[in-house]
């Protein structure tokens, strides 16, 4: 199929960006979206132009590196996938596709479609861990029985890949789905209980400091999340936060 691409080009974080039109031809429906971008970039390099910079790495939907905002949706029109898993069969011959970076005040653009997600790192550093040394001298793993239900729920929360689609999809640029998922994973497990109150307070404080917006229960984040992280995690974080605040 033949396509027109409207792509955000921005030289660096300080430059003013703009949408630029490109044409690609003979795109196979079996290609992934990023393979289509590879075709475009090869074309640009061969004609002496600068290729479009975009983040990507594993190309199997797990590293969370890829981050395009395609036709107004984070990771494009399909559900439950990242940009690298989006396939061209979702598009039709002659389509015009708009490709932008994830936009949020807390995710400044570095170049073209690449954004800076260091804010997520700092939130995790504020408390996204259990304070246990890696000496290996802990108790036997089976000394802490955990109900299958709790373990499964913790696992569901832990599958977050930290891509930032939730932030990009939210009209308030809220990071509460991301933070809620991490808080929930530990809150659901007995190992995480000891520091639960400090954790939620520290992580939320850092989240606010980074300039992410608040949650107004629109639910766009859940719809666009490639890993199907549930809104329940935000509710759980709010409960954890409230009870931590009451404890003082």
């Amino acid at each position, binding site marked *: 199929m033949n396509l027109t691409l409207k792509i955000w080009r921005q*030289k660096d974080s300080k430059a003013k960006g703009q949408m630029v039109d490109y044409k690609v031809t003979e795109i*196979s429906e*079996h*290609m*992934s979206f990023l*393979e289509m971008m*590879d*075709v475009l970039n*090869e074309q*640009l*390099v*061969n004609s*002496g132009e*600068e*290729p479009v910079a975009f*983040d990507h*790495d*594993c*190309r*199997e939907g*797990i*590293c*969370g*590196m890829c981050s395009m905002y395609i036709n107004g949706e984070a990771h494009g029109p399909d559900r439950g996938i990242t940009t690298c898993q989006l*396939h061209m069969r979702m598009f039709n011959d002659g389509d015009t596709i708009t490709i932008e970076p994830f936009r949020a005040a807390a995710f400044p653009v570095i170049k073209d479609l*690449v954004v*800076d*997600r*260091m804010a997520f*790192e700092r939130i*995790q*550093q504020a408390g*996204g*861990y*259990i*304070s246990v*040394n*890696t*000496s*290996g001298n*802990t108790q*036997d*793993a*089976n000394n*802490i*029985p*955990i*109900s*299958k239900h709790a*373990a*499964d729920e*913790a*696992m569901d929360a*832990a*599958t977050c890949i930290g891509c930032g689609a939730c932030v990009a999809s939210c009209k308030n640029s809220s990071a509460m789905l991301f933070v809620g998922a991490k808080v929930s*994973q*530990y809150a659901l*497990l007995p*190992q*995480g209980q000891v520091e639960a109150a400090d954790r939620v307070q520290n992580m939320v404080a850092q989240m606010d400091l980074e300039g992410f917006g608040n949650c107004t229960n629109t639910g766009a984040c859940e719809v666009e999340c490639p890993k199907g992280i549930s809104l329940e995690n935000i509710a759980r974080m709010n409960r954890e936060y409230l009870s931590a605040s009451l404890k003082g």
Partner: protein
Amino acid sequence: MALDSKVPKGPIKDKWTDYKNKIDLVNPANKRHIDVIVVGTGLAGGSAAATLAELGYNVKAFAYQDSPRRAHSIAAQGGINAAKNYQGDGDSTYRLFYDTVKGGDYRSREANVYRLAEVSANIIDQCVAQGVPFARDYGGLLDNRSFGGVLVSRTFYAKGQTGQQLLLGAYSAMNRQIARGKIEMFNRHEMLDVVIVDGKARGIIARNLITGEIERHSAHAVVVGSGGYGNVYFLSTNAMGSNATAAWKIHKKGAYFANPCYTQIHPTCIPRSGDYQSKLTLMSESLRNDGRIWVPKNMEDVMAIREGRKKPTDLSEDERDYYLERRYPAFGNLVPRDVASRAAKERCDAGYGVNATGEAVYLDFASAFERYGKEQAKIHNIKNPTAEKIYELGQAIVEAKYGNLFQMYEKIVDQNPYKTPMMIYPAVHYTMGGVWVDYNLMTTIPGCYCIGEANFSDHGANRLGASALMQGLADGYFVLPYTIGDYLADDIRTGKIPTDTKEFDDAEKEVTERINFFVNNKGTKSVDYFHKKLGKIMWDKVGMSRNAQGLTEAMSEIKAIREEFWKDIYIPGTADEMNPELEKAGRVADFLELGELFAKDALMRSESCGGHFREESAELDGPQKGEAKRNDEDFAFVAAWEYKGEPADAVLHKEELEFKDIELKQRSYK
């Protein structure tokens, strides 16, 4: 230089404990004055950085991604082995050790493997304490599954995302140390050379991938945990950015590179669909617990399926050839990866491949749906369930176990694997070879260590499933933090290593000159053009089966591509900005050297062992006819190559392998 593996004396089961009791330690006050650089933040690098920082060293960690959490360990699916014997099925440290040595086709170092098996149980304890949500049974205890090449269930897992969960565990431990200021994290940085001062590794030159700035970083020791070199094939299950540059740079500065020809071609990957393909996707080996692999028995059915006249589900049981069950009745679908891959290639080469390219076999879950469905019907007390009901109940169980893999398959192939069997074909997945290290995980450069997939030590010629995660974490959490102390104990009075020295000047100059060459060269071809050409030679001539003629050709062809590369490469953009083409150029330049050494190593090793299959060395008759034939008399050694300029001039050093605790046998899975 003679290779000294520094394996401690004494009985194998006491070596590690006795050794730890005797090595030098650095006291906590002195650790504060010692800096360690860790390159790579996957399971090995991430766990090492966290542990070294906890111990009190000042750690500088480097990742080319925008977060340590994105290292490619994240993509490991199936699980992690540990000799816990929670299932009471006869597992033990010895058995895990034995399985790993046998699985590696007797080409690994016994003492290292035993230590790996010994610390494996601790890894699980550690990860649970960190909050890794492993799968559990209804009693709340940890669940296990089985992987290829073994007869016990010792694999711990978190759905099909075990690597992700373990890496997030190590990442959380890193975050705790980053918050304390004990790890200084350099995201979007790439190591471009190691700096050697007075014969010791004392720092690195790195490029800031956002600004293009070249930076000097000094330390008392350098740890490389930068992963494997599977991307030398262009197409592999590795991440797009996975590269061998850090490992190759230390090789060029004096670290020997061992067994490059030991590469794992994983049997269950999604087949390629076209020339534009950028990478291949793995379907976890855990699927072979429940999936059965087959091709049609009759050529008419193969043609009918390819032409769309028949569907795989139309074929009755006796029209199918479950070739692994036929050839290897004892292990069936759970033979080791190298064996399963070659068997798939054998069927496809014989013309039985089931897709248009002729390179695909089926992985079928129908009998698992039925088996689980019947069991569930009993549990839920459903009398006389219909076939549909059984299927439905069975599918729910399979979905709970492998749901994310099935979804991934459907998104890529656009077929529903609950309704029709998956199509799979082998793909490059892991490299057992790597930088040579001694028992301390130190390379032949004093003070330069190599851990995880980047080193060569534990998997011999073939890695068993769920052993990579085990090795990465064992190296990083439990081995290196001890052994590095023995070296650093001599550095307590050294003081900070200055970076304004001639050694740093020279290393930086070399790096800068190369970058300037790339951005100024007026060539005509893109990096991918050369990378794809290299990959095709590697796959065709240094792939699943190799012969002397092909390997000789590969060496000269790779050399020719390399020469063309340095003449005709074109890199758009400049050096002082984010420039992905420039990054790729440096990596491919290194692959173009590594690929030739790889072929040279494969040519030298004229035996078949593990993932390295030489057509000249196969069993000609008897019950093992057609199977790989090892040659212990001439090849029971580690091939460690010393860099001498051109890859073809590399000098071979042999570390003889001694097997005192395991008898060398033909590896039979029949």
